[in-house]
């Protein structure tokens, strides 16, 4: 199993690590048993994700995919962010080993969970917009 240079760069120097106080949306996916938990915080101004931070418990790929996902959605509109797929995260990282692809799914889910939370706080049902956020239960990597 070999990580690309981009993965190692994002692992060694993760972008947007941390938390946002009074975040407009917070999403957490994964569980400790599987060995991956991702938590994403977003700040939304006029429909744009003006700031995003993450916390991750997990392997190198989990940290790198969270970091890359935050970079890809920062400054984007929610509509644009929702178009982000795990595949795009993987491509931006110059690929992931097959056993680690589930980490990129988790990054996409964490972002969607944060946006869902944002809508819920606005009193809007997120499901028609964001869809169902699978979290970890549907992650095929898990038990």
């Amino acid at each position, binding site marked *: 199993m070999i990580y690309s240079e981009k993965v*190692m760069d994002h692992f060694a120097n993760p972008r947007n690590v941390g938390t946002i106080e009074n975040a407009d949306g917070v999403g957490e996916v994964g569980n*400790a048993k599987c060995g991956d*938990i991702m938590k994403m915080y977003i700040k939304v101004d006029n429909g744009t994700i003006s700031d995003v931070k993450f916390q991750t418990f997990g392997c190198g790929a989990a*940290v790198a995919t969270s970091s890359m996902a935050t970079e890809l959605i920062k400054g984007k509109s929610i509509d644009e962010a929702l178009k982000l797929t795990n595949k795009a995260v993987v491509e931006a990282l110059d690929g992931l080993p097959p056993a680690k692809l589930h980490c990129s799914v988790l990054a996409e889910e964490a972002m969607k969970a944060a946006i869902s939370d944002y809508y819920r706080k606005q009193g809007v049902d997120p499901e028609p917009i964001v869809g169902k956020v699978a979290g970890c239960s549907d992650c095929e990597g898990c038990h």
Partner: protein
Amino acid sequence: MEKRFVYADNAATTRVSERALSAALPYFTEQYGNASSIYMLGQNAAKAILKARKQVADAIGAKTNEVYFTSGGSESDNWAIKGVAEVGEKKGKKHIITTAFEHHAVLHTCQYLEKHGFEVTYLPVSDKGLVTAEQVRDAIREDTCLVTIMFANNEIGTIQPIGEIGKVCREKGVIFHTDAVQAVGNVPIDVKELNIDMLSLSGHKIHAPKGVGALYIRAGISIPNLIFGGAQERSKRAGTENVPSIVALGEAITAATEDIPGKIEKVTKMRNRLIDEILKIKETRLNGDREQRLCGNVNISIRGIEGESLLLSLDLMGICASSGSACTSGSLDPSHVLLAIGLPHEIAHGSLRLSISDETTDEDIDYIIECVPKVVDKLRAMSPLWDRICRDEGITGGNLY
């Protein structure tokens, strides 16, 4: 802090020693004959193998004709277990006893035999990572053909009561095999005193090259071949001998067993310093018994962080270590060894194994002691799990102390 390179994964493999390498080198380009050939060049190779066989035999208290060279620990384990099983089957004995935390070379061979009608008892291990001779005695049945229990565990370093188990097996007339891959050179071994019938060992764990090992089979025990072909290894293991590696194994095992008490004293001091310093970090635990433990093994679980991240971070600082984390193995379950001693998944994911050797220096230990807390601090700072643990359990203060 000046960056160093520290190799702390000697349970995975070791550096080939100068002594083993220089002994082996002539057999690549000068004495390259086939040991089966009649001319001098071939006979020189045959003599070198004979010398190495005596070196291996002497190191474990065996006779020269009881040592068979193989490709390594896995082959030795496979051959011993399948061989004894085949003999047992003919006598209607289709029961094998092993433990839950064996190396996969043993576990997967046993699982293979289960598919072929054998019954296998996997003895549970204690939370300290030990089995007892009483457990073995209680598990032995009329139809037990083999007991196979590792000498020392590869992940948590616990040393099993092999002499007591050997005695029970001998009394009951059951063949006793032990995978001693991690123990050779770290624990004094005398197969006669310990009543060991078969013993697997590997070269690359004791500063010989990868791809060479041996199986000790006590005289009087006959098992069928695993590999058929030519008449090498007294017709029991075919294939042209890997002469340079066999020569290196001979030198390496001699070196490794020359002063085991001295090595234990020196390495244990460094190991204990590592354990004591890392355990100062809060929410950590040592896995495996502290006393019945290989002198070079440290295995610690660190809550709130994941093993692979820990290893990658240490690697960035120049430290080679390993983990029982699922993520390092390609599977999704954490180490079967850590689960066998009762660790929950989330704690097993965050384990760190450091395995040092007599080549490790005090400066290496200083460096590891300096780096590990830095990495733990960084990873806990970004871990939502650590946040939750602190919140749920009322842990206050920093990430470390």
